[in-house]
């Protein structure tokens, strides 16, 4: 996965696309803003979600953040590793620190997401 090819949400998630399956995680910026991540809660595999449904909780020492699904579809895999060792997300948010894979129903939902360049511009405005 090349980060430049990922799409991004306003909620600072990255989305990597492989056919009709998307992998999601949080951006390096988000991981840095959250600080030390100490606990991650993810849904069960098989769960059906709609675009923008909450699909997880990220607890850092200082704060808590919600994870939202960028697409409608079914969760087909979660990264057990980040649940056991949440600090991975701080260390490697784009590779080892992925959260889940979702089989999407409708790829046109991706149209609203930012490209890598657009996301960087968005960060610049924040």
């Amino acid at each position, binding site marked *: 996965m090349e980060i430049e090819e990922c799409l991004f949400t306003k909620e600072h998630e990255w989305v990597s696309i492989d056919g009709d399956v998307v992998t999601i995680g949080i951006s390096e910026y988000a991981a840095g803003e959250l*600080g*030390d991540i*100490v*606990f991650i*809660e993810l849904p069960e595999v098989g769960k059906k979600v709609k675009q923008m449904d909450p699909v997880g*909780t990220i*607890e850092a*020492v200082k704060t808590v953040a919600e994870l939202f699904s960028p697409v409608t579809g079914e969760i087909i895999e979660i990264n057990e590793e980040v649940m056991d060792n949440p600090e991975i997300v*701080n260390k490697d948010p784009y590779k080892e620190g992925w959260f889940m894979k979702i089989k999407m129903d409708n790829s046109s939902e991706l149209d609203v997401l930012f490209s890598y360049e657009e996301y960087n511009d968005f960060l610049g405005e924040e």
Partner: protein
Amino acid sequence: MSKKTALYNTHVNNGGRMVDFAGFLMPVSFEGIVAEHNRVRGKVGLFDVSHMGEIEITGDRAAEFADYVVTNNVGSLDDGQICYTVCCNNDGYVLDDLLVYKFSPSRILIVSNAANYEKIFRHLSDVQWEDVEVNNLSEETAQIAIQGPRSRRLIIESGICRGSEDKVKNLDYYRFFSFEKDGKEIIFSRTGYTGESGFEIYVPPGQVKDIWNNLENAGEKLGVAPIGLGARDTLRFESGFCLYGNELGEDISPLEARLSWTVKFDKGDFIGRSALAEEKENRPARKLIGLELTERGIPRTGFKVFQDGEEVGYVTSGNYSPTFRKPLAIALIKRSVPKNIKDFKIEIRGRKLGAKRIKFPFYKGRVKD
């Protein structure tokens, strides 16, 4: 518009994440809260606490005045000794928690929280005793905390106490001394709010950068680094130290917050005395306890606490404890819950998760080493 301390640029250059805290732009973290926390427990860290307030009371009856406005016994302190105390209103609720420095019976220095010092200054000014003067020195006082097992070594090796090394070496817990540098007074105090051995230094803002730089440079091999407010909170939390706005406030009495030891009924009259005496007689309604979450989640301030299906209180402070690597919580619960009851639930975003009562404070450091 947030205020900046004299060390603001230093923090920015050190990569501090700056946030507004009580009207001041302060660093919440540098390398990361957990790493900073562990550095203070194991080595030594530097804190900018210039946002704290300093109020001086002078005049022949200064100590007497202090005894009237705080709950602890200032009169019984030696010159050069400090006490931790609360300042209450007439109803016995807490206006702030303070350190009281006794230079002499005619000169007292009160250190107050950033969010409260203006309120405390007004409160003390309203008391109005003849021949007692109350001055707010907060703007002209910067403060650094040096905390951790290597703090004394760092201070001595940095040269910031040149000529007073023996005084630093022999300074006991909750004692202080002062000296003049370039015509200004600098105070060295054996205090802190981390649960580790440490010092706090009060210095004019114009001199604080030099002292900070000397400490940072001398401390490289000791492993010193700046520490933000995030780790300051986790350190005090593990040590069971009250934070105003969490464990203390105008709706919580010191008797509920495990601070009975700071309320000296035998010292004479003080503001809040009769209300507190009555509360003591009837027994306080609530108490602080320590909880460990037994399921996965992080308890946060304000989350409800249940026992056997009944809501019995709320979390005053909750966090992931970097030292114990577990989610812990301080909770204010009804006193009527018996001591032998260990099993509680904490409601986290609609789910009631298990928590068990554990020894409190969670961490006991070697503050007197």
